[in-house]
């Protein structure tokens, strides 16, 4: 089992971070939509945003780690069966995920810290406010946070559809190789 990526296989670290972030991001999206419409007297009125912010900060930290990781590791080569437009679209989608995630994390942080208050990270530490750029900061950041999240959700659907297409129609290794490292074939 390889920890790091190879030319044709994702390693454990890439696979774990992909799936941990996938679960957290989908959860955060659903929680985000759910929490903004909560009734004032709901039991979750205060707790839901608290969890959203803590997990959001966790995703931010994972994102930073992931970017550093991706830059410093080998990217498994596209399968031979991929068409060149497929590779292009996948690249754009993957890069868009990074950019959108970055935007979503920053804008989310800017909503809660707009008036200088810190964000509590799982009752462990307080992440302090740094930037206060405008009186409308919370509104502007809120708009951006929401729009970027919906674009990301759309790209997520595209990403999932592409996975299914590769797995069930093309019957290739696309899904399998992000599930577990591929055993090296032949004498590489």
């Amino acid at each position, binding site marked *: 089992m390889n920890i790091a990526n190879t030319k044709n296989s994702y390693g454990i670290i890439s696979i774990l971070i992909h799936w941990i972030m996938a679960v957290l991001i989908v959860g955060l999206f659903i929680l985000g939509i759910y929490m903004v419409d909560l009734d*004032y*007297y709901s039991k979750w009125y205060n707790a839901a945003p608290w969890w959203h912010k803590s997990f959001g900060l966790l995703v931010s930290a994972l994102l930073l780690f992931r970017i550093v990781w991706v830059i410093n590791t080998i990217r498994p080569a596209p399968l031979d069966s991929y068409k060149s437009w497929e590779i292009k679209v996948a690249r754009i989608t993957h890069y868009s995920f990074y950019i959108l995630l970055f935007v979503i994390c920053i804008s989310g942080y800017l909503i*809660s*810290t*707009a*008036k200088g208050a810190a964000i509590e990270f799982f009752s462990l530490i307080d992440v302090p406010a740094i930037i206060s750029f405008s*009186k409308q900061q*919370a*509104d502007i950041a809120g708009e951006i946070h929401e729009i970027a999240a919906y674009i990301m959700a759309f790209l997520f659907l595209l990403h999932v559809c592409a996975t299914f297409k590769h797995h069930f129609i093309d019957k290739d290794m696309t899904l399998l190789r992000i599930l577990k490292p591929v055993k090296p074939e032949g004498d590489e």
Partner: protein
Amino acid sequence: MKVFQVAILALSIVSTNIMADEYVIDKKGMHASIQFKIAHLGYSWLWGRFNDFDGEFTYDKSNPNASKIEVTINTKSVDSNHAERDKHLRSDEFLDVEKFPQSKFVSTSFMLNEDGTGELKGNFTLHGVTKPITIAVKYIGEGDDPWGGYRVGFEGTTRIALADYGILKNLGPASKELDLILSIEGVRK
């Protein structure tokens, strides 16, 4: 005789117009505030304020009941010292500041008693709804300031029901009404 009465009346109108000084609310030095408090669950008061407002009034010491006031509030400036709550207050669940960026009070009558208490009536516009309200007023004081100006100040309080102004978000039975607390200092023009 009739001519005499008319002349007196005309003179008094002219004199009040001359006498009634115009004042600008001291926004520059911020010796004025528009605050509100609303019950939180019925257990405590949540205080907030509007940081941006503007207004002018006329006031004449010898005829205070002729005073008039007009105040405009920038609803975007709502501030309860909590970024997320303020964002929520600006949203369409409360003030809907995109649609209703201004709130306004225009007085219709004023009555000041000997003891410095009084009643200010007027039309208050909030969330696009205009309703008559009565503000309980307290005259605080007036006189020269140390910098060559002349100032007069009042305090006013009133209570409004959120539902009257079409703000229907349910904050619980204790929080259907809010108190407005106005502290106004005017500098004579």
